[in-house]
């Protein structure tokens, strides 16, 4: 996982709330056995109609948004299935951060493990961001803060451990492996065995 320390980018906005993981990546793209190349399937059925033609009105289809690394989405982004293909597709497409008022638990966990930063903001900030697609934002991951174009700085909540791993590009498996002695003791001394 690449470290994410800071980010400066314009936003692309999807105002719909409750965007589920079936919208982020439809199930028929889940037969892959790799993590790569899923960017093409990102929001597939929102980006293309049933004949494969580009839906011009969908924000990601505006060529001016192609280099945006920050996605602003409606409330409760990433609800639904546990498919990690959702953050893989977002990252493969080029996103490094998603901003909403709330994220589904499994999506948030999956995103953080793939260098994709889920940022929760208050309703007022969110309303402003939704109303200003293309706004240039600065994100300071170490400080857990977001800078709006008018210079206002907004702090967002993030788990300290997740931030530590994100800013150093640490994958958590290594950390868990270091606990193996404690795990072995636990297995030997617990009062019942599964």
């Amino acid at each position, binding site marked *: 996982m690449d470290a994410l320390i800071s980010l400066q980018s314009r936003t692309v906005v999807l*105002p719909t709330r409750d965007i589920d993981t079936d919208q982020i990546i439809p199930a028929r793209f889940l037969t*892959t056995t790799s993590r790569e190349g899923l960017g093409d399937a990102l929001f597939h059925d929102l980006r293309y109609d049933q004949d494969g033609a580009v839906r011009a009105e969908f924000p990601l289809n505006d060529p001016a948004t192609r280099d945006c690394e920050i996605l602003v989405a409606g409330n409760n982004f990433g609800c639904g299935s546990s498919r990690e293909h959702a953050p893989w597709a977002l990252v493969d497409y080029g996103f490094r951060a998603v901003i909403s008022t709330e994220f589904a*638990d*499994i999506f948030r966990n999956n995103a953080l493990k793939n260098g994709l930063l889920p940022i929760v903001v208050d309703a007022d900030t969110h309303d402003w961001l939704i109303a200003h697609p293309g706004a240039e934002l600065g994100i300071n991951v170490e400080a857990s803060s977001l800078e709006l174009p008018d210079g206002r700085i907004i702090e967002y909540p993030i788990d300290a451990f997740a931030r530590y791993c994100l800013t150093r590009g640490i994958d958590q498996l290594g950390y868990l492996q270091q606990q*193996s002695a404690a795990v072995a003791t636990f297995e030997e001394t617990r009062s019942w065995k599964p």
Partner: protein
Amino acid sequence: MPNARTLVEKVWAEHVVVPETAAAPAVLYIDLHLIHEVTTPQAFALLRERGLPVRRPDLTLATMDHSTPTTPVTSLRDIDVVSESAANQIRQMVRNCRDFGIDLLGFGSEQRGIVHVIGPELGASQPGKTIVCGDSHTSTHGAFGALAFGIGTTEVGHVLATQCLLQREPRSLAVNVSGHLPAGVTAKDLILAIIREIGVDGGTGHVIEYRGEAVRALDMEARMTICNMSIEAGARAGLIGPDDTTIEYLAGRPRVPQGVAWDAAVSRWRGLRSDEDAEFDRSVAIDASQLQPMVTFGTNPGMVVGIDEPVPDLSDASFRKALEYMQVTPGKPMSENPVDVVFVGSCTNGRLSDLQQAADILRGRTIADGVRMLVVPGSQQVKQRAEELGLHRIFTGAGAEWRESGCSMCLGMNGDTVASGQLSVSTSNRNFEGRQGIGARTVLASPATAAASAVMGRVADPRGLK
């Protein structure tokens, strides 16, 4: 009682290997890891890359369900799957399980089925266990008083390699259901009503404990239906304290402890309940006796109405978009909508009692002209039991298709899909846009409502057909 604890707190405490601090989450031990073909290939690839073994293959149980065909398969050579990549995924699963020493209930196994159906059926899902799977509906196993939740593929890799996960302790939400379900109203109707009450994000960060006399009165299969859809309320998990119903269900199943170990387990399980004075972070109350058959009208599982009630009207843009997609008119009941497809199956409602409820409606009747009905048992064992009872003949006699087990039309990745624009009444758990196929319109309902809708050719109240 200052030390009063909830059931979740008790199960959590028993599995903490390293306690959580402000700087790091807890290391939580996992007792049962269920795996399937779709969310594991990248996890096994990581293990291979790093030369790591699976720490506890004996606590890992594998099956194939998501991309598998529901037409008969006798050998891997003739897997008739939707695509070459799906076939490749299935072959990789076989290879990964063989190479890492994991028990795979694959094609040819009479115990194969949807992962959340076979765990309970085999007695592997037990009270007090921590259970995970790379699948959000792992909450199903909470029906046994287990702490069971879905994880992503990276975490699947963590559990394979270390049998542990990094987790923060969840908050608790008590859902207290009083009264009794009226005749013709089922567990599916109850959970749809609960999701409407809590909202699709109302459970975020929480584990739900379902309590109260209406929950106690449910059999295990109905409790699984309830816990299954906890994730649809945004919750990390849902559970129900074990009781006699739980223990009777588990007795004699192949993977439960035997002999004196069984007696010890039962006495331990009897202590697994929330203490009387335990405090929940939040609570919600529902009166079961006020419910009627419930159906969804929109594109998330919280957009629910009673079968008699008019579809509500809101000016909100997301709400409007959902109604437009569904081609549903506000102010009118869902029963006015003609039906193209009916799907009975999935980890929500693909168990024997679910098939029986559908069969009770279909007995001596036929499905309406132009309706396609697919009945997909949740596991090969459910299929076999249903055939012993002659249910398959009721289904095929009524004009429905009777299939091999699997996820099938619940997520439409094995080729069983609903065509664009068609309306499907489905006993599964998600009505998201395109979930059952591009452009498919899904109405979630109970098996009885689904069967009644097949007979009537429109969304229908099963109570009229008894």
